[in-house]
C-alpha cells in the first residue's frame, strides 16, 4: 500500500470517526436524559466522545485548509474559486453561529442570574428568621415551664416523683420526662410511648450548661420532619456532697402544623442554598457546554462548506485544467461526467468540442502533411531542374531558389533564404547584370515578361531565356518568381547546325563548277596565247592567271567548309598527347624559327584515346591562331601546356594554348566558335569552328577567354578514354535535354 493510499484511508477513518462520535454523543444524550443517574454516569463519556469528535473534525479541517492553501499558493486552476466559495460559505455559516452563540451566552448569564434574585434570598432568610422566632417563643415558654416544674420536684423521690412526672407529662403533652441524677443516669422516666430500652444517657452539654448555671434548651429536627424541644432544669434538692444535684430533661414535640411550616422553610432554604452554590459553576458549565456545541457545529459546518465548495468547484477545476490542456495542444482531453445538471451539460459540451477539435486537428495535420509532401516533391523537382528558379519579394529578398539558378548565375543559393540578392557570394558581373536587369523591370512596374537576356562573362556572353511572373498574394505585396534557362549552348548549336548546312551547300553547289572554270581558263590561255600579240597575250595571261588563282582560293575555302561540314569519321587510338604536342610545335618551329613556342607538359598525363589526326588538326589550328595573333607583337610567345583534370567523374586531358597578344575582341568573344567569325583581317573564320566541332566529336568541350594579364587563352578538354567519354556524354545529354526543353 503506498503512502497516498494510507493517507486516503486515514482521512476516511477520521471522517467516519468524527461522524460516529457525533451520532454516539447524540444517542448517549437521548438515552441518558431519561435517566438523570445514567446521565451523571455517562457524562464523562459523552464529553470524551464530543472531544474526540472535535479533534477528528479539527484534523480533517486542518487537512482541508492545508489543501486549499497549497492549491492557492501553487496557483492550481480553480483554487481561487474554491477559496472564494469556502470563504463565502464560511461567512454564511460563521456569522449566524456567532450571533446565536453571543445571544445564548447573554441569555445564560441573564437567565441564571434571574433565578437567584436578591428578593428571593432575602425572603427565604426572613422566612427562616420568622420560623426561628416562632419556635423561640415556644422554646422560652417550655424552658420557663421546665424551671417551674423542676422546682416542684424538690425532694421528691420514688413513686411520688413518678406520679408528678406523669401528671406533668400529661398536662404539657410532653413526649418524655426524665430525671437524671448528678452522674447523668436516668433516675425516673415518664414517657408517652412504651419504653423499649433504657433511656439514652444525657447529652454531655446538658450537664455542662446546667453546671454553668445556665438553663438548657435545645431545638432539634427529626428524620420524619418533626421538631423536638429539649429543656432541662436543675432540681433544687438539698445538695449532698455524695449524690450531687439532680436535673430534669423534658422532650416536647413541636406541633405538627408548626413543624411542617418550619420544615418547609428549612427545605426551601436548603434547596435554594444548594442551587445558589452552583450559580457561578453553572454559568461556566453552560458557557463551556455551549462553546463545545457551537465549536462542534462550527467545525462541522466549515467542513461541510469546504466539502460543498470543493464539490461545486471540482467540475470547474476540471474544465479549467481541460481548457489549459487543450490550449497546450492536448486535444485528447476528456472530462469525467459527474452530474446531469447544467455543469454536466457544460462538461458534455466541452468533451464534444474537444472531440470536434481533435477531428479538425487531425484533418489539418493530414492536409499539412500532404502539403509538406507536395513541397518536398516540388523541392526535389526544382533541385533536379536545369532551369533556374528564384522566388523573391519585390525588394529582391530571396525566398527560395534552386541549385540550377546558382549554377547559371555563377553563385550559390545555399542558405540564401531571407538574404538580398546582392548579398549572395561571389559578386560576379553575370549576377550583377541579372540583378540590375531584374530590378529595372520590377521598378518599372513589370509584373510579367518573357524574353532573352544576355549576360557578360569572362568566358563569353551567356544568353538566358528568362520569364517572370507575379505570385498571387492577398496583401498585394507578393513576390515574383523568375524562371530562366541558359540557352547559350542552344543558340550555339542552332548556329552550328545552320553553318553546317551552309557548308554542305557550299561544298556541293560551289565546288563542282570551280574545276570546269579552272580548266576552261587554262584551255583558253593555252589555245589563245600563241595567236595573240604580246600585249593581248599579256592581258590574257594575267586574266587567266587571276581566274585560276581565285578559283584555287575558292577551292581552299570550299574545302575548308567541306571539312567543317564533314560527317564525323573518327579513328580512335591510344597515343601520347604530350608527344603529339611536341611534334606539332616542332613542325611550326621548323617552318618559322622566329616563332616563340613554349611547352609546359604534364609528365603524369596518361595516354588518351582519340583520333590522332584530328587532335593534330586542333593543335595546328590553335598554334596557327596564336602565332598569327602575335604578328607585330614584340616578345610574343605561345605557351602550350597540358594537364589532367576530373570533371563529372571523368578524367579529362586539358590542352591550354595561350598567348600574350592583344586577345579577343570583346564583341566577338561570345561567338568565337561560330563559323565565319574571325578576329583576323584575312581569316576564314572556320579555324576555331572546326576546333570546336572536332572537340565536340570527341565528347569534350572548348573554352576561350581573355587573360587578365593580356592575351588570349583557349582551353580544350578531351576525355582520356572512351569510358570517360561516355561519362561526359551523360552530362552532355543532360545539357541536350535542357536545350530541348528550352
Amino acid at each position, binding site marked *: 500500500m503506498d503512502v497516498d493510499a494510507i493517507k486516503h484511508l486515514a482521512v476516511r477513518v477520521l471522517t467516519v470517526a468524527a461522524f460516529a462520535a457525533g451520532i454516539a454523543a447524540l444517542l448517549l444524550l437521548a438515552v441518558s*436524559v431519561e435517566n*438523570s*443517574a445514567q*446521565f*451523571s454516569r455517562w*457524562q*464523562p463519556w459523552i*464529553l470524551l466522545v464530543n*472531544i474526540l469528535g*472535535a*479533534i477528528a473534525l*479539527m*484534523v480533517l*479541517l*486542518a*487537512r482541508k*485548509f*492545508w489543501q486549499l492553501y497549497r492549491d492557492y499558493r501553487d496557483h492550481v486552476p480553480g483554487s481561487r474559486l474554491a477559496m472564494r466559495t469556502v470563504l463565502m460559505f464560511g461567512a454564511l455559516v460563521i456569522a449566524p453561529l456567532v450571533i446565536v452563540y453571543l445571544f445564548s451566552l447573554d441569555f445564560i448569564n441573564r437567565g441564571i442570574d434571574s433565578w437567584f434574585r436578591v428578593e428571593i434570598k432575602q425572603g427565604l432568610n426572613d422566612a*427562616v428568621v420568622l*420560623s*426561628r422566632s416562632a*419556635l423561640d417563643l415556644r422554646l422560652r415558654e417550655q424552658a420557663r415551664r421546665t424551671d417551674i416544674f423542676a422546682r416542684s420536684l424538690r425532694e421528691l423521690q420514688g413513686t411520688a416523683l413518678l406520679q408528678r412526672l406523669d401528671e406533668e407529662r400529661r398536662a404539657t403533652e410532653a413526649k418524655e420526662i426524665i430525671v437524671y441524677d448528678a452522674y447523668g443516669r436516668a433516675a425516673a422516666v415518664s414517657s408517652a410511648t412504651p419504653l423499649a430500652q433504657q433511656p439514652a444517657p444525657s447529652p454531655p*452539654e446538658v450537664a455542662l450548661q446546667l453546671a454553668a448555671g445556665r438553663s438548657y434548651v*435545645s*431545638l*432539634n*429536627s*427529626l*428524620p420524619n420532619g418533626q*421538631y423536638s424541644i429539649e429543656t432541662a432544669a436543675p432540681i433544687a434538692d438539698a445538695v449532698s456532697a455524695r449524690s450531687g444535684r439532680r436535673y430534669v430533661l423534658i422532650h416536647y414535640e413541636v406541633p405538627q402544623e408548626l413543624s411542617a411550616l*418550619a*420544615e418547609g*422553610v*428549612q427545605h426551601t*432554604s*436548603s*434547596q*435554594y*442554598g*444548594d*442551587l*445558589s*452554590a*452552583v450559580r*457561578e*459553576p*453553572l454559568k*461556566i*458549565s*453552560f458557557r*463551556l*457546554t455551549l462553546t463545545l456545541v457551537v465549536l462542534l457545529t462550527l467545525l462541522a459546518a466549515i467542513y461541510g462548506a469546504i466539502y460543498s465548495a470543493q464539490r461545486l468547484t471540482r467540475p470547474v477545476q476540471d474544465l479549467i485544467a481541460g481548457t489549459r490542456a487543450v490550449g497546450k495542444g492536448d486535444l485528447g482531453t476528456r472530462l469525467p461526467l459527474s452530474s446531469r445538471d447544467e455543469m454536466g451539460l457544460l462538461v458534455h459540451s466541452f468533451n464534444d468540442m474537444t472531440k470536434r477539435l481533435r477531428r479538425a486537428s487531425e484533418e489539418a495535420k493530414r492536409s499539412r502533411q500532404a502539403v509538406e509532401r507536395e513541397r518536398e516533391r516540388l523541392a526535389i523537382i526544382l533541385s533536379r531542374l536545369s532551369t533556374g528558379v528564384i522566388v523573391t519579394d519585390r525588394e529582391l529578398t530571396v525566398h527560395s531558389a534552386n541549385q540550377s539558378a546558382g549554377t547559371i548565375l555563377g553563385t550559390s543559393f545555399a542558405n540564401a533564404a531571407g538574404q538580398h540578392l546582392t548579398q549572395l557570394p561571389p559578386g560576379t558581373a553575370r549576377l550583377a547584370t541579372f540583378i540590375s536587369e531584374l530590378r529595372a523591370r520590377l521598378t518599372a512596374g513589370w509584373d510579367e515578361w518573357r524574353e532573352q537576356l544576355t549576360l557578360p562573362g569572362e568566358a563569353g556572353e551567356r544568353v538566358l531565356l528568362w520569364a517572370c511572373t507575379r505570385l498571387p498574394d492577398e496583401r498585394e505585396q507578393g513576390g515574383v518568381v523568375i524562371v530562366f534557362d541558359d540557352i547559350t549552348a542552344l543558340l550555339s548549336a542552332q548556329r552550328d547546325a545552320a553553318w553546317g548546312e551552309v557548308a554542305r551547300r557550299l561544298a556541293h553547289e560551289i565546288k563542282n563548277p570551280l574545276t570546269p572554270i579552272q580548266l576552261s581558263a587554262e584551255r583558253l590561255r593555252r589555245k589563245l596565247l600563241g595567236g595573240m600579240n604580246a600585249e593581248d597575250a599579256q592581258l590574257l595571261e594575267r586574266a587567266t592567271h587571276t581566274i585560276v588563282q581565285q578559283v584555287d582560293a575558292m577551292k581552299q575555302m570550299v574545302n575548308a567548309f567541306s571539312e567543317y561540314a564533314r560527317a564525323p569519321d573518327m579513328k580512335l587510338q591510344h597515343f601520347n598527347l604530350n608527344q603529339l604536342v611536341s611534334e606539332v610545335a616542332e613542325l611550326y618551329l621548323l617552318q618559322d624559327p622566329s616563332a616563340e613556342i613554349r611547352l609546359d607538359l604534364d609528365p603524369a598525363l596518361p595516354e588518351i584515346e582519340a583520333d590522332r589526326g584530328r587532335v593534330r588538326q586542333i593543335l595546328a589550328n590553335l598554334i596557327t591562331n596564336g602565332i598569327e595573333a602575335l604578328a607585330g607583337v614584340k616578345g610574343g610567345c605561345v605557351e602550350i601546356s597540358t594537364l589532367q583534370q576530373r570533371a563529372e567523374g571523368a578524367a579529362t586531358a586539358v590542352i591550354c594554348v595561350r598567348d600574350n597578344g592583344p586577345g579577343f575582341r570583346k564583341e566577338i568573344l561570345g561567338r568565337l566558335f561560330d563559323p565565319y567569325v574571325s578576329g583576323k583581317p584575312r581569316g576564314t573564320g572556320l579555324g576555331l569552328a572546326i576546333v570546336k566541332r572536332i572537340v565536340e566529336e570527341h565528347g569534350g568541350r572548348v573554352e576561350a577567354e581573355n587573360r587578365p594579364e593580356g592575351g588570349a587563352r583557349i582551353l580544350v578538354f578531351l576525355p582520356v578514354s572512351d569510358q570517360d567519354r561516355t561519362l561526359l556524354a551523360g552530362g552532355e545529354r543532360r545539357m541536350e535535354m535542357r536545350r530541348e526543353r528550352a
Partner: protein
Amino acid sequence: MHTISRLSVALVLLIALAAPIRVRSAGPLAGDFQIRSAFVVVDHGVLQLSAHIDYPVNDRIRSALRDGVTLAFDLEVNISRHRRLWLDATVLETTLRRELTYHAVTDRYVLRDEAGVEQENFPTLEAALEKLGRIEDLPILVQSQLRGDAPWEVAVRAGVRRGHMPDALRALVFWTDDWHRTTGWYTWMLTL
C-alpha cells in the same frame, strides 16, 4: 499538514483538560483530608470496620453549609482477592454515604444517613465532622461471604462532594465542580 494536525490536537486537549484542572487546583475542600487509620475485626462472624478519618475544616465549608449547601461524605470499602494472570476478584464493593447539612431553623448541623432514617444534630461543625470521622464497628460483610483463599486486600477511601443536587445539574456543573475530593486508597492485607 502534520504540524497543523498536531497543533490542533494539542490545542483541543489543552482546552479539554485545562479548565477542570484549573478550577480544582484550589477548591473549597482544601485542608487536611486523610485516613489516619483503618482496620477490620471479626466479631461473631461479622467483619466490622473501624476507621479514623480527618476531614477538612475551613471557613469556606462552614460558609457553604450555612448558605444551604449539603455535603455528602462517602466511605468506599473494597475487598478484593488477588488472582494470578487475571484481574483481581472483587469480594465486596460498598459505600457508606452520609450527608451533612446546616439546619437554619434550628441552628444545628444535621448529620443523616443516605436513606434519611437516622439523623443527628450537632451544635458545631467540628462536632459533626468529629462524629463523621469516627467509624466504629461498622459491619461490612459476613465472614462466610469471603470467597477464595486468604489474603484479601481491603481498600478504604473517603470522599467529599456536593450533596443535594439534581443529577442533570450535577452533569452541567461537571466542568467546574470543585466540591469533589477524595483521599487515596488506604489498603492493607486481611488475613483471618
